[in-house]
């Protein structure tokens, strides 16, 4: 088994549906420590991505990830646009010209995406951001890739969920929530929550189809 371009399309379709469903929840999380627009912005961004990729033929990962990246950057703005955009862009650049890769190769490309987020956001693990969900998921995917695709994906989803929940006791050091200082403690990070949804949609698309 392997990871294919069609799985990327399916993942994004699933993510679009899930974000639509969780729109209010994400906005509530954001109103506690941010500016109450994360759900609205991600919902708008995902809708634009789906409009862009639906019915379009892609011969490699580079094309579909580039379209997703450029679309979310121009449709969302704020921090989420450039950060998720960079994640998709770097993965696509790593896998350019390929239409099917092993989970191990995908994990390496996702590490590139994660590095891009860290560089652009000048941020790392433990700052109460999306990185706290993505970093453990990428690590789990890489370390468990020899156990078979579905085992690796399941572990990645669990790692992302733990990472997301792990942001609750953290003190925010990046983004608008950082202005709250101590008052940011006790709230789950909305960006980490969306990132968990993203990882779980990739898992569902790859394992369940």
């Amino acid at each position, binding site marked *: 088994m392997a990871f294919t371009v069609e799985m990327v399309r399916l993942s994004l379709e699933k993510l679009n549906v899930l974000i639509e469903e969780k729109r209010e929840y994400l906005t509530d999380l954001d109103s506690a420590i941010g500016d*109450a627009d994360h759900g609205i912005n991600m919902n708008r961004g995902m809708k634009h991505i789906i409009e862009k990729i639906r019915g379009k033929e892609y011969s490699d990962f580079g094309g579909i990830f580039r379209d997703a990246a450029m679309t979310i950057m121009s449709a969302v703005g*704020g*921090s989420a646009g*450039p950060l998720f*955009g960079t994640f998709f862009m770097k993965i696509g650049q790593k896998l350019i010209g390929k239409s099917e890769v092993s989970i191990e190769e995908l994990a390496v490309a996702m590490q590139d995406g994660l590095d891009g987020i860290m560089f652009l956001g000048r941020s790392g693990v433990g700052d109460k951001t999306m990185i706290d969900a993505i970093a453990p998921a990428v690590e789990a995917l890489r370390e468990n890739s020899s156990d078979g695709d579905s085992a690796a994906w399941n572990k990645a989803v669990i790692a992302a969920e733990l990472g997301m929940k792990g942001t609750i006791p953290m003190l925010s050091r990046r*983004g608008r929530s950082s202005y709250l200082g101590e008052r940011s403690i006790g709230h789950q990070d909305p960006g980490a929550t969306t990132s968990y949804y993203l990882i779980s949609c990739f898992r569902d698309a790859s394992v369940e189809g």
Partner: protein
Amino acid sequence: MKKLINKIDDVVAEALKGLSAAHSDTVRAIPESRVVVRASSSSPKVVLISGGGSGHEPLHCGFVGYGMLDAACAGEIFTSPTPDQICSAVHEVNGGRGVLFLVKNYSGDIMNFKIAREILEGEGVDVESVVICDDVSVTDSTWTVGRRGVGGTVFIEKIAGAYAETGASLNDVKSLADRVNANVRTMGAALTSCTVPAVGRPTFGLGDDEIELGIGIHGEPGRARVKMSSSAEIVEYIAGAVVDDLPFRPGDEVAVLVNGMGGTPLIELYIVYNDLKQFLGGRGIKIGRNLVGSYITSLDMQGVSITLLRLDNQMKELWDHPVRTPALCMWR
């Protein structure tokens, strides 16, 4: 929520159309990219481009025109503009002598301008940027995002804009903007929250007898929540924090901005200015130039911010340089 709007999704686009219709002699809006540019192009000069989330009007689009900005990009309410907006603003006004981005220090603005800069440099455009960070209510450290860009933005756009008009080089305009940024400090206080149209309810709760000291322009929390008091006492707290931060010293000559947050009437801003003049007089600080009005707002928030800039001769001369924009017009 009671607001004079039609559709929530159309708030920014319709406001830009209205701005350019009302000031067609000065500015032109490009609705599809939500960019506002000067109505007529000037002689080749360094171009100044700013932008940010909407909801702070007249900042930034109201400051496009002779003597200030060449273009401004309007994001959604309180959401940074996107790299393609910023690039199209540059394509529209670039005169080949370089581009200076004036960016308020918020994570989203920094990232979107950074990506735009990379794209433009790839096209061979000369780009520099200045990150504005004048809010003393935020602790500055390498572990945090750093200080927010607030009222000082108006002074930087005015003074750097005037300098660019004189034909100064990109490096010179950038160093001057950096110098203004290093000498300007601001703090604000909110009497009420703002209400974001798409959310429909106040961003934060504040009791009838409470105020938030050190508020940000998006309703971010400040240093302390205290009981409402007199204008003179509020001025003493916020101007005191501003003066102590730089610090401003006896004998300094300053430009001051007494800025309304959007929902505060001008009569109250003049009371604040009167209190500020007395307060600064007591500290031996002379007001050389002033601006009183609502220039960088937070939608319908009631409140005020006080900005002090330590002036030098060059800044004073450039302050007096003519400016003609929708929101700031001094012509002599």
